[in-house]
């Protein structure tokens, strides 16, 4: 019997190595898998590259991971916010690297990695610092920039419900990056509010099919 559910948060992130690249779902705190992040802090992996839309809010979740000094590099679209003081201080002190990616490029680069696309052209960022050193091409009279996929060793995401096969449904706008990140990591770990029996999720409404998910843990 296939069973992707994992007994504890601890077990769900036990094998994350130092230097891993980790996607963390969420848009601000909506959809942020805080329990998995806390487990990762306790687990102790260092030198991480973290891919997220933001760079942490307040002092919990991703901000706590940054504060614990575990992150070597942030890849995100929108680091500066009213409550991103943990990241701001680390960045000014030169203790964390930053790669800023326009938000649609972030989503599409992740999608490309998950879909086996080698690279894609987009007009976004052409002629700006964000396109420096990148290949460009004129397509239908409009300049485009070549962007490469963004994959990860682990994706930590949050969903509303899951089953033992890894099928997931989300809650409202907390869905955001979860479904695309799930496709782009070697190991996708989903933190869910509840695990339901196989067959209980309406197949017409499953948002992330179980094929993309490796571990499901209740938090």
């Amino acid at each position, binding site marked *: 019997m296939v069973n992707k559910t994992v007994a504890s948060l601890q077990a769900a992130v036990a094998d994350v190595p130092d230097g891993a690249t980790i996607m963390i779902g969420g*848009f601000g705190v*909506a959809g942020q898998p805080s329990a998995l992040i806390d487990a990762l802090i306790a687990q102790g992996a260092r030198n991480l590259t973290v891919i997220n839309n933001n760079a942490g809010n307040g002092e919990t979740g991703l901000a706590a991971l940054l504060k614990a000094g575990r992150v070597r590099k942030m890849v995100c679209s929108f680091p*500066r916010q009213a409550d991103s003081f943990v990241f701001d201080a680390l960045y000014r002190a030169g203790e964390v690297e930053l790669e800023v990616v326009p*938000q*649609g490029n972030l989503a599409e680069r992740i999608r490309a990695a998950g879909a086996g696309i080698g690279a894609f052209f987009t007009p976004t960022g052409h002629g700006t610092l*964000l396109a420096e050193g990148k290949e460009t091409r004129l397509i239908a009279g409009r300049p485009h920039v070549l962007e490469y996929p963004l994959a990860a060793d682990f994706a930590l995401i949050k969903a509303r419900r899951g089953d033992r096969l890894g099928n997931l449904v989300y809650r*409202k*706008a907390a869905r*955001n990056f979860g*479904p695309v990140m799930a496709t782009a990591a070697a190991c996708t770990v989903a933190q869910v509010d509840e695990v339901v029996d196989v067959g209980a999720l309406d197949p017409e409404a499953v948002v992330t099919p179980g094929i993309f998910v490796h571990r499901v843990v209740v938090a």
Partner: protein
Amino acid sequence: MKRLTREQLATRVARDIPEGAYVNLGIGMPTLVANYLPRDREIFLHSENGILGMGPAPAPGEEDPDLINAGKQPVTLLPGGSFFHHADSFAMMRGGHLDICVLGAFEVSASGDLANWHTGAADAILTAAGLSYLGLGLEISTPGDWGRDLADAQSFLGDGIWWTSLFPGLMIILLTVGLSFLGEGLNDMINPLLKKERA
């Protein structure tokens, strides 16, 4: 130039949005437009974080942390609304499916060139890339705003962005020095004690 208030500006932009339009409102002032949309028109608000059919702010106590707009403020969902993931959300924007985007801008020239904050450039560029219509909303600075501009700009000093502080700062210094010279001049001209000394 007669200056519009933020509310007047939002009302003016809202008036131009037709029935059936799919509209993205940028973070900041453009968000206000949602409060002034004509009620007799069916208009669909898109939020980059995966919402179509976004409604107004919820009543106090009914906020849902999983239902927020791009500025991470609590919102509601209207009947017929939907949720989707980020790649789909940006396909709507970049694929040219939205009709209108209302952007906040740092500065706009008379010919419509727009300047944005350095750190916010990414968002402005990508939204501008796929749209057929841009509604721009920005307030005009007046002497009363220099203090506020300076205060806003100071938060960027730590990032080495000094030039946004320079101009409001210089204007305040110029105004102060100017007023002080004016006072000195008036004193020289009309102070009776000084007149006696000269005589």
